[in-house]
């Protein structure tokens, strides 16, 4: 694995409007730092995240993708995050099956009150992805063998 001190991973975070996006706002309000690598996309519910968005992100150059939603049982739409949990578990399992590094994908439940958790998760995730280096495997997957 290549170690590049200057490598700055591109990280896409999908956050549900009701819990995690508010949690991210709270970590801002409380001035809790996390790396600028993390860019948040607001979605109404974590269940709005289509696996195609995740794959698209990887293909366009993301090095890590994280999805954040309300804690199970707390979904603003009652059941959205339960569907998310199944879909994303299966998708991540498939990516793992294809040999993609596991630490490039993550799902976390962050409530509107968990600003500190949001910052912690983002710090940790960015570090994990930074260690993995540039995402080559997903970009490469279909590529003709060199």
């Amino acid at each position: 694995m290549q170690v590049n001190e200057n490598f700055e991973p591109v990280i896409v975070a999908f956050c549900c409007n009701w819990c995690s996006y508010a949690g991210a706002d709270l970590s801002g309000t409380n001035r809790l730092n996390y790396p600028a690598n993390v860019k948040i996309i607001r979605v109404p519910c974590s269940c709005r995240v289509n696996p195609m968005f995740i794959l698209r992100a990887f293909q366009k150059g993301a090095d890590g993708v994280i999805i954040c939603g309300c804690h199970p049982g707390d979904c603003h739409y009652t059941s959205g995050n339960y569907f998310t949990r199944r879909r994303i578990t299966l998708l991540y399992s498939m990516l793992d099956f294809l040999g993609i590094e596991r630490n490039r994908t993550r799902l976390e439940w962050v409530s509107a009150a968990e600003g500190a958790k949001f910052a912690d998760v983002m710090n940790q995730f960015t570090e994990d992805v930074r260690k993995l280096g540039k995402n080559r495997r997903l970009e490469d997957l279909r590529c003709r063998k060199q």
Partner: protein
Amino acid sequence: MQEAMIKRAKELLADGTVNRVIGWKKGEFFYDATPAVFRTAEELDRQFIFDDFTQANVSKYLVKESRKDGKILAFLKPCDTYSFNQLVKEHRIIRENVYVVGVPGGPKLDIEKIKAKGITGVLSVKNENYTLKIETLYGTEEMPFYEAISGKCESCKSKKHVAYDELIGEDGEVLESNRFDMVEKLENMTAEERFNFWQNELSKCIRCNACRNVCPACTCENCVFDNPKSGVDNKAPADSFEEKMFHIIRAFHVAGRCTDCGECSRVCPQNIPLHLLNRKFIKDINSLYGEYQAGADTTTKAPLNDYNTDDCEPSIVHERGVE
């Protein structure tokens, strides 16, 4: 068997139960058995075949056929009935417009496996006590039956018809199958080995779409890969998103709906083991959310459209096996 099927089909045409029959006819070569619709007794006599090479799953054709006027007779092998049920469940096949006659399943033969033995110019293949007598342009050859059976029949999951109006021949049982062996083998590899395996396989893909076109779960009116608004359509094949992610997205789209009929791998001209992607999803669903066989009935909720409040977290993926 072929005679019994033709006889019954003629009866059902004659008494007006159905006005069409879907089965198989010979292609360019005798082993190219192709799905075909027959309208008359005469057509049946002339073209209808049912032999060791009639592998194709005709369920998918019923999406369109069941929307036409009159009832159609469909001959379905056990594995085909699962696809049929799944399509009925998804309101793709109108059940009332199909008369299903269950017929025995395989094992069917794969001509490529015979050719792989160096046997060419094949004129006919006969199974005599599990030894194949192969007539070729250059003389007669022999090989063991089991060395020529189709990949999808090697790990047959069921000899039981889960949907039929009548049966010709005996019904079988759901089998203990070894179909997840290869998935398991891959799971036990390192991530790098897995990546190399799939890179090797998927780089063979020529995007002919045969897998999608044959798949009974891929019956969308407008496939996302053909839809310019979906963001994954095929605009610039040189470096498009779709080419890279096509198989992952396709596998995800059919997850929880794929009955593991094996048609995708059967028709792949590049011999990519695409069914392994589907089986991975099936294996995960079985182990994480409880045993589920798509198409086993027409009522159970699909696992991806369902949930339990105590389902496992995705971190389970990160914790298990080797990385």
